[in-house]
């Protein structure tokens, strides 16, 4: 890490040391939870109650306040996983491995939510639960990619090896995601004729947009909370024989 200035490198090493990270996570989680609620409540209120009813779709469009942020998160988390995979492979940073592994189920969860809400939304829109729409199809493939990461990690016994394997897979996946995305989109226009995508509204009214953005940020904060919790657990599992975990146990018992 010679090309990184020493103070920054020191900061990273300190933050990345498991006990330090554990304490830091504990300090941050309550604040993040408060922030999450502060964003979620006005977001939901604004989206479900204050925003006007859509003249075409009625109230059923309101599912976008869950669907769209979840779909954004599903992609965002995968990209983040690949970044952490790169860090884990290049700098052998344990914390990046832990973050990568902990992110996978959360990302899969968001992808699943995006699929289910998309399908629920499809019922009043198209009259059927499932349409091979480009967005839904891409989301389904993304779910497969997440499940691949999770099951590969579960199958390899040695945890450091598993982290290495998953890092490689996440990087391979992230290179493929745009290719998959554009080929699916191309396939979709080809087989169904150009359909008006649900999000391609020429303009979305400001009273609808603000709650949507609030929800998007709330989802990001939720991800941060879930990630810190999962990472804490993963660290405890991995470092169960380390001194700092033993000290922690003595304190709580």
């Amino acid at each position: 890490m010679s090309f990184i200035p020493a103070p920054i490198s020191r900061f990273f090493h300190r933050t990345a040391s498991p006990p330090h990270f554990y304490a830091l996570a504990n300090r941050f989680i309550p604040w993040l939870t408060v922030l999450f609620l502060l964003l979620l409540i006005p977001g939901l209120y604004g989206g479900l109650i204050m925003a006007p009813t859509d003249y075409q779709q009625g109230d059923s469009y309101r599912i976008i306040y869950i669907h769209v942020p979840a779909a954004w998160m599903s992609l965002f988390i995968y990209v983040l996983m690949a970044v952490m995979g790169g860090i884990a492979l290049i700098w052998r940073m344990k914390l990046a491995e832990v973050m990568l592994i902990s992110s996978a189920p959360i990302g899969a969860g968001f992808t699943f939510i995006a699929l289910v809400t998309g399908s629920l939304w499809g019922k009043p829109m198209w009259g059927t639960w499932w349409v091979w729409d480009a967005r839904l199809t891409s989301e389904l493939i993304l779910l497969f990619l997440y499940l691949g990461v999770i099951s590969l990690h579960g199958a390899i016994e040695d945890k450091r090896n598993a982290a290495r394997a998953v890092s490689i897979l996440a990087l391979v996946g992230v290179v493929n995601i745009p290719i998959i995305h554009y080929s699916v989109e191309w396939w979709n226009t080809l087989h169904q004729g150009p359909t008006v995508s649900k999000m391609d509204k020429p303009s979305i009214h400001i009273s609808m947009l603000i709650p949507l953005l609030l929800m998007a940020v709330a989802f990001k904060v939720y991800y941060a909370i879930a990630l810190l919790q999962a990472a804490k657990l993963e660290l405890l599992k991995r470092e169960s024989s380390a001194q700092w975990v033993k000290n922690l146990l003595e304190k709580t018992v």
Partner: protein
Amino acid sequence: MEHLPQIKLEVADLSCSRDDRLLFSGLNFSLSPGQVLLLEGSNGSGKTTLLRVLCGFREADDGQIFWSGQPITESTFFADTAYVGHADGTKKELTVAENLRFALALSRSGKYSIEAALEKVQLAGYDDNLVQTLSAGQKRRVSLARLLITDKILWILDEPFTSLDRQGITLIENLIYEHVKQGGMVILTSHHDLSLPQMNLQRIHLDSCH
């Protein structure tokens, strides 16, 4: 073999654990041409793991390995090292000669020809036999012949005596003796005691390396 005198394997403060169990830590040693290192220790003490770390198959948790003063990944280490492990590394559907010729394509050729090496390991005349028709001991001899036909300074041998008869054991001891005499180095694990007292032999007991 006109190897430069400064060739040296140095291991500094190496530690390794498996499944949360510390195998060894703070391991230091160095090996120079003409020396043999015998790793001892009970089952599960990390002998094989250490050999695999030295081969670069496995990463150590901590510590460094130097070859002629440079970290092994930046040195000629992999061109200079041969490994004979539990698996023979031969293809059973190929003949003995085909296997050896392939090994030769991957590295510098040594001073033995394939025929001479087979004679040396007492497999003369087996060139065209498929490896799957050989016995376990004979397969082991094929992997020993691989050491002879290539030009490697460091031999890393994991339990080389298994499945060999009395004669085979003497054979390996002679090969090791000859190799170190010519400035080679050998690291091996074994339950047998080497019966060559005039060799420059180091021993490391892994059970005590914590």
